[in-house]
């Protein structure tokens, strides 16, 4: 067995272990768990949208425990300042009585950061955090402070109670690798949640991986090949979300104000690599891309008024774009 094959096996084992570990605390929500793990493996940040109390915080905390990584939670409020996120220079005196400014790290300096209700913070604060997410460093007082690796932000936002909130601008939404929708649990899952949380025994989350393992996972993912057919498919999806230009889909032309950016194509391919490796393959397939389409594109397209009037969601538009691209992707030999 070659090195890459061993790495793939190890990757699959690790991902399976992580899934199991998270499953010890989080009931159901397989799709969200899978999405978060993909973001972890793809070195991307996740935006989770769901009603309060659905286990978003628990998920991130459990993941941190399973990985034995630093974890911090920031509860965003309108009065929160950027320094509350990134940290600030404070005046301090040493043992000799000499005074100087010392950088005190904010909560963002963790491996896993849960930015709870990120849309409640002011744009200024949001920008500070999103800049740190993109640059993976914080600049305070002219000094740069790199964030730890691995670094993963999982922001949440509440789809209700929109009053007094500051919806994330499109440019900043684009910096999230995936947008995951956290659904209500099923009746069976809810029963299990109640059973676990109202009893005497709490869930024990085993540590199944380390920070080094996460970095190794990311290196393995990078080696996965992308055949031309899969790349073409991914690019067709991204172009298909554009309301204008060659390759636009009818749905995008009708319902989209703006389509996905190149980051969308990057997210599709990278997520496809993770899915391929999870599936035991060393190349990305169109099925992998298709699987990544919703979480990778739903927050990257901006719907117009007509979509709202017609009750079209971003997911529905993405589905139509996928259907459009698949209809054009015919058997090349035609027999």
């Amino acid at each position, binding site marked *: 067995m*070659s*090195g*890459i*094959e061993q790495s*793939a096996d190890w990757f699959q084992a690790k991902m399976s272990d992580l899934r199991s570990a998270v499953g010890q605390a989080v009931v159901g929500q397989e799709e969200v768990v899978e999405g978060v793990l993909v973001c972890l493996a793809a070195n991307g940040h996740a935006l989770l949208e769901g009603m309060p109390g659905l286990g978003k915080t628990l998920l991130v905390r459990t993941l941190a425990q399973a990985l034995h990584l630093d974890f911090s939670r920031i509860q965003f409020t309108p009065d929160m300042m950027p320094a509350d996120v990134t940290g600030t220079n404070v005046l301090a005196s040493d043992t000799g009585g000499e005074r100087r400014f010392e950088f005190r790290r904010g909560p963002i300096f963790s491996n896993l950061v849960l930015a709870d209700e990120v849309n409640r913070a002011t744009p200024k604060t949001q920008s500070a955090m999103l800049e740190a997410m993109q640059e993976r460093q914080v600049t305070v007082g002219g000094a740069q402070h790199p964030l730890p690796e691995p670094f993963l932000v999982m922001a949440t936002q509440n789809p209700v109670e929109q009053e007094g909130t500051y919806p994330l601008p499109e440019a900043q939404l684009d910096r999230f690798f995936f947008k995951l929708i956290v659904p209500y649990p099923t009746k069976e899952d809810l029963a299990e949640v109640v059973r676990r949380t109202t009893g005497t025994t709490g869930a024990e989350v085993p540590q199944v991986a380390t920070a080094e393992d996460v970095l190794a996972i990311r290196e393995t993912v990078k*080696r*996965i*090949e992308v*055949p*031309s*057919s*899969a790349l073409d498919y991914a690019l067709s999806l991204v172009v298909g979300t554009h309301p204008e230009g060659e390759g636009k889909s009818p749905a995008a032309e009708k319902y989209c104000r703006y389509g996905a950016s190149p980051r969308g194509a990057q997210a599709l391919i990278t997520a496809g690599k993770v899915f391929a490796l999870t*599936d*035991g*393959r*060393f*190349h*990305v*397939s*169109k*099925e*992998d891309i298709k699987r990544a389409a919703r979480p990778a594109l739903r927050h990257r397209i901006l719907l117009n008024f007509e979509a709202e009037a017609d009750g079209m969601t971003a997911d529905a538009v993405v589905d139509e774009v996928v259907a459009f691209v698949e209809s054009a992707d015919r*058997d*090349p*030999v035609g*027999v």
Partner: protein
Amino acid sequence: MANIQEVISKAGRRIRALRGLRGFGFGLFVGSLLALAWVVLDLAGVWLTEWAWMGAVVLTCAVVGLIVGWALPLHQAQVARSLDRRAGLKDRATAALESEAADAEVAAAIQHEAESHLNGLDVRRAYPVRTGPWPGMAAGCLAMAAVGFWLVNSGVLLDEEAQKGKEKLEQVAAQVERIAKPLTEKTDEVDPGDEERELARQMVDMAKKLERGRLNEEEAMRKAEQLVDDGRKLAEKRFGEAQKQMASWQQQMTKQEFQKAGIDEGKLQDLNLTPEQMAMVQEMQQQAGIDPSGMNEEGRFDPQMMENMGLSEGVQELMKMTPEEREAMRQMIESEMKSLADQMGKEGLSKEEQEALNERMKQLQELMKDFQLSEEVYEAMRQLMESETYRELQEMMAEMMKMQEQAASGEKMSEEDLAAMKEQIKEMQERLEEWAEQMQDPEFRAQVEAQMKEMLEALKRGELTLGQCQACMGLFGMNGLMQMPGGPGGGGMMLGEGENRKQEREGELAGDTTPLSVRGQRQDKGEESYVEIKAPTTVGNRSSVPYDQVLPKYKQSAESAMSDKKIPKKHEKRVKEYFDSLTGGKAKAGSGK
């Protein structure tokens, strides 16, 4: 474990086969559509067809479709992508094919992983045989074409009367086709020209229409007349070309003989009698008892030959005389000159008389000079006449003339005649070639060889035209419609004016068809007029006049034409021979001159 390349190649072959099959189906459909369109054209009378041709079109289209389908470009990447889709391989084949670009370890892993999935893959299951909708549509079109063809050509749609005559029409059609066939086939001896082919095509077309009951009697007659006219014109044209070549060659040969005898063109030009000299010659001929009317007898020079040489009328008169007559003529001139000399020697002649005698003597001396020169020419011509090749050529020309006259008069050339003619042409060709080899002057030899080739080609064309004449003659004698010579009730001929003459034969008298004939004329502007004649005959089932009853009338017309000088003098002999041959030599063309 399955090799990627092998699997892709296997799938490629399968795809090509399926494409070929689909192409075959599509071609079949296109061919069927063409066949259907052809049937529609057939129905409209625009383009007649046959089962075999329709089948050939359908099959050809199908085969072309098969070949095109099989030969369409097919790349490995296409096959790989298709295979991924068909076999649910999740792009494994494509990735394996493109993995060379990746790092070696990953490429090997991709190959290994793809091969493990391709192992046991059944390409036939991935690419099942699907013919598509084309064969079904083709079958539908073919069925419609077949039904249409059967309906319009089987005679089902014909009325009762038309169906009764269909059998006879089919017989006639078969005969017409048989006659037209040689005109369309190229052999070693015969290469039909475009005009011959066109004529044959029209004949075949007509035969098909007759066979399928698509022409009624009137239309058939009209068409037959037109074809006869076309055939006759073509025959005349070909004979004209052959004659021109013959004459040209004759001239060349004559020049050669004259050059051998030391007579150049200048001398021949000098040998041009003045009107006075002509009068003197005629006077002396009378005195010598030479009958000018008997100059066309055997042993004398052919007028055509002299015409071709460019000899003036007066000189031709000199050439027509036999050696004995020439000697008598010489003696007459010498005697006249002696007599004049005696008169001039006498005394007491007035000045005017002296001058008149001198003038007469001068004319006689000129005449004597020309006469002597004519003797040289005569000798050269005599030698030319003695040349075996030239004689053969003359005979050939006469034979050709006879054939032309036969064709023009509608006589059918027998198989023996045709064989004899072919043999003659062959023999003539050999002799001419021998003669050409004997010629010493390379330039002249090349020229004559070229002339000979042209002439032989013209002869061949002339022979072909005889075939057309046969066909045309056959068209004439149709049993009230068209009966071919040699066929039941054959033996008739049709003239350009639309008059119908019948050579009587016993078998013809027992026919039972409705007698009918059409006499028509087409004007330059395309207007047509015709007179339809329908009448019972007293001698049989057709309107006919016995041959020997109309011949005297035509002969009388010819004689009056000759006496009125409507026929060129040089053709008078031919007219006379023609009527002699028709009457079997019983009648003499007494007023031939």
